[in-house]
């Protein structure tokens, strides 16, 4: 991982500092965060609650603008939302008046070039969406409304929505937070398979360190608020990783290393 060259860098954050205004007071959410992500890299950001992980993803999505520093994607500075990004928010936020299928299809109605083709090629896109829904275990839920499926199912639908338009960058904010351990581990494998197949660039936020090690090429650990990057760990476990691998010596070693870093951040 030390042979990083400038061309390989796809996403970069340079000394990003962001403050929210809350009742006239500035709340510093992240401070002086710099990181680089290669094209096709799977990056996981871990850190204690409230340390600014969501904020970091929002900066990359162009939803909030940093007060200091800058974010860039493919050497272009992020100044606002971009079309090559897929984001799954911490809460699923499905549109309640749309059924699951129409929620998943939403990005295609907005993002070029699908936007112009959507009406004419709808059945094609519906087939793609079906396939995606099936891969996360949601077949047969197409025409339910969001409130008619469970929280975990909503989260999976939201993941499909983030993926449907084949974005180059996938921003996932605790995408498996509302799932049971079994479904979660199953979806790790689904996501890994999709990623190995399509090779999009991923930034995933999580509290779950096993998840981090299982999925990541690189794990960044953030400090408590205001969030700073305190460590960067490369995970060299070969791919595709299986659940068996989570018991391997290499896996547990990396896991304990990151666990220790988090412990330091929290001061224990």
């Amino acid at each position, binding site marked *: 991982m030390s042979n990083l060259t400038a061309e390989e860098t796809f996403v970069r954050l340079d000394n990003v500092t962001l403050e929210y205004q809350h009742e006239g007071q500035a709340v510093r959410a992240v401070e002086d965060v710099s990181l680089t992500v290669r094209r096709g890299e799977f990056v996981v950001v871990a850190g204690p609650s409230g340390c600014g992980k969501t904020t970091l993803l929002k900066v990359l999505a*162009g939803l909030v603008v940093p007060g200091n520093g800058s974010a860039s994607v493919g050497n272009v500075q992020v100044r606002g939302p971009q*079309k090559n990004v897929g*984001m799954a928010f911490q809460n699923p*936020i499905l549109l309640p*008046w*749309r059924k699951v299928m129409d929620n998943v299809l939403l990005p295609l109605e*907005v993002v070029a070039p699908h936007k112009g083709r959507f009406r004419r090629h709808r059945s094609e896109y519906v087939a793609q969406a079906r396939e995606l829904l099936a891969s996360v275990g949601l077949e047969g839920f197409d025409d339910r409304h969001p409130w008619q499926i469970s929280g975990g199912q909503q989260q999976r639908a939201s993941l499909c929505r983030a993926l449907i338009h084949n974005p180059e960058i996938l921003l996932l904010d605790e995408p498996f937070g509302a799932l049971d351990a079994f479904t979660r581990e199953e979806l790790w494998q689904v996501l890994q398979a999709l990623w190995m197949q399509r090779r999009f660039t991923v930034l995933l936020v999580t509290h779950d360190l096993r998840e981090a090690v299982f999925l990541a090429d690189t794990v960044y650990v953030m400090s408590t608020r205001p969030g700073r990057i305190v460590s960067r760990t490369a995970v060299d476990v070969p791919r595709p990783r299986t659940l068996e691998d989570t018991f391997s010596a290499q896996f547990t070693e990396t896991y304990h290393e990151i666990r220790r870093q988090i412990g330091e951040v929290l001061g224990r």
Partner: protein
Amino acid sequence: MKRTSLLTEWLPPLVVIVSAFAIWEAGVALLRVPEFILPGPSAVWVALVKWREAIWFNASQTLYTTLVGFAMALAGGMGLGLAIGYSTLVYRALYPLLVAFNSVPKAAIVPVLVIWFGIGTVPAILTAFLISFFPIVVNVATGLATMEPELQDVLRSLGASKREIFMKVGIPRSLPYFFASLKVSVTLAFVGAVISETVAANKGIGYLMIAASSRFEVPLVFAGLIVVAAMGVALFAFFAVIEHRLTGWAYRGPALTV
């Protein structure tokens, strides 16, 4: 299951209504209230049957003015509500005027309308329009104003334009508010039409009641009152059903599946 729920739903109001009529009838009979002060339900019924053609003719006139005025309010209210919700500039520019306008009692406008349009159908339609317009505007604008920022973020993160966010989130989000305003608004339109007819018309159920009262046809006045009440309830119920049918998602109920 279905039967019991229907029964439990309809039985209490039915009992109340029937008992109210029974008490009314008994009270009038026992206290020997003269018919020109308060006729009993049976006398009102007789008047209803006797004057059914006049009642039918005038009621349909009122329904007509109500619905035309209401249709105008629908189009105008939806349009203005969306404009206000879309643009903060339009909102700031128009809101004070709208509030001022709404606080004028609409009955006070009828004489002005009579000066401009004479006695007849037009003032009734315009009164219905003016009185029912405001709730629609306010509701639609509220629906847009209370749109969750998270919902917008979903669209924004995809690079959607303001117009796209408006079309895909704003409008669907405000529809339940719009439909909720219809039942209130149509009732107001009806009130407006009847008020205008009592002052400035030669047709309509309001006119019929004023005419009957000036001839001391008190049972007919009450028959008119009953018809007015029934029409108001019917209009309200009609739009309540439409609301439920079209925006079932907002109630999280099974409404959409029926």
